[in-house]
């Protein structure tokens, strides 16, 4: 039985909060230490611990939070729980991020972006993680287009036994041209990635390259929590400090 909310609590306490606290100093130099960071968080009505914990840690406050959830009924509950934070969404983030009329476009840029795809009750089908990575690039591009020079990016997903299709990721990324960028190489990883460790290595490498594509330098830390005893299901989370290079 996979218990995502319980694992999320662990990841919030042990990884997201300490890592963002450490890096938030880069976003808030001494003279602006009290500045509250603007947060975009992909979250769930049943488990929104990051909002509370970031608030307790004085990293942000609810007025500075934009939350995304994929379901109407969850949006209703979440809005009741975390108001005055803005709750937007009602469709899966990855299907909306590339839309030219993306509803949260006007809220960009953010200081912190938490794309926790495990909060969306992921449909464990082939191609899911590939779509998520595509939306990571859409998000980084939006940050870049709207003048987000330094930010913390968190990406969390559920890894299962489905292979990771490296070619599909490369193709999706290379479909977004950037002047002077030669594109992701299709030879760096095998077409189908089977091993969990290799999938993680690939995702980290791609994230770092996508940041370079938009002229950002990135520093990445990760945490993995097995969700099943046989380790077929894993919650995999990355926190990256992204800065104009």
């Amino acid at each position, binding site marked *: 039985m996979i218990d995502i909310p319980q694992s999320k609590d662990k990841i919030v306490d042990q990884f997201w909060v300490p890592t963002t606290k450490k890096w938030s100093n880069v976003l808030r130099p001494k003279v602006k230490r009290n500045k509250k960071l603007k947060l975009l968080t992909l979250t769930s009505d049943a488990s929104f611990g990051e909002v509370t914990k970031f608030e307790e840690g004085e990293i942000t406050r609810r007025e500075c939070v934009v939350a995304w959830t*994929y*379901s*109407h*009924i969850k949006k*209703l509950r979440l809005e009741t729980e975390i108001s005055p934070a803005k709750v937007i969404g*009602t*469709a*899966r983030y990855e*299907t*909306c991020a590339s*839309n030219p*009329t993306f*509803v949260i476009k006007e809220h960009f840029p953010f200081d912190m972006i938490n794309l926790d795809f495990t909060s969306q009750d992921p*449909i464990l*089908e082939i191609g899911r993680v590939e779509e998520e990575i595509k939306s990571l690039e859409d998000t980084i591009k939006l940050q870049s287009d709207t003048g987000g020079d330094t930010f913390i990016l968190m990406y969390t997903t559920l890894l299962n036994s489905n292979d990771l299709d490296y070619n599909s990721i490369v193709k999706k990324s290379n479909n977004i041209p950037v002047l002077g960028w030669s594109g992701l190489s299709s030879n760096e990883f095998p077409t189908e990635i089977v091993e969990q460790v290799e999938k993680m290595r690939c995702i980290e490498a791609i994230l770092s390259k996508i940041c370079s594509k938009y002229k950002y330098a990135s520093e990445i830390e990760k945490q993995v929590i097995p969700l099943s005893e046989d380790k077929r299901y894993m919650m995999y989370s990355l926190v990256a400090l992204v800065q104009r290079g």
Partner: protein
Amino acid sequence: MVERNKLPSLPTNLTIMHESQEKWRKKAWEKTLTKHKDELEEMIEKIRLFDIWSNSLQNIEAAKKLIPEIFMDGYISIHFSCYGLYKYANSCLRSQLETTLRLIYFSTHPIEFDWWGSGNEWYRNGLRKRDVWGDGYQYFQELTRVKEFERKCGQGENLFRDGGRVSRIYGKLSAYVHSGIFSFQTKSDEFSPQYKIAQFKLWLSNFNEVQEYIHILLTLSFLDEFKNMRMREKETILQAAIRTDYQAKLKEMFGA
């Protein structure tokens, strides 16, 4: 009790309203939930289907604005019925159906959608009928896929043609909006809102019918988007909201 403490001291009439309302709301809500929890869970599952549509119609501006409203009409309809407010629960259903018809029309009329969005429906002055879809829902009857679907339907199964099912339920729900005598919330011996099984069942039947027609109409109007959904999502919509014979007709149309 906690809520109560947050309130300031209330004037007389408002105190009467507040205190009686707290009681009838609690009584009706708990009775309805106790007696119909499984049916209500099914209703909520049905309105959750709009999440799937919301996901699939992201490229249609009208859908982004109107689907949340269609969802909310369904949600509030359930809410009202659980409080024994059946007249208003049924009124919400007409609004839900009407907004769906608007979505279908506006999805291919973006300029009219902008005018409508800004409250400037000047072009309606030139229409012979109050609604852009004309007499007897002529506009929808002429849509190729609706026509094709209706050709497959037997006697009495049409959606629009010959006083079809959508037209009939719309008329029935309009009686609640326009306060037809049988739709009254109050009776001489029943004034405060309360759970009534007959009224609940009637509303439940209207609710199911409306959800069914909404999903059929959305499927017919956005057939390509429907085809592109995940197999599981398509099946969820068909199984949860649409009766078997209509399901079969739709499946023929999208080649399942």
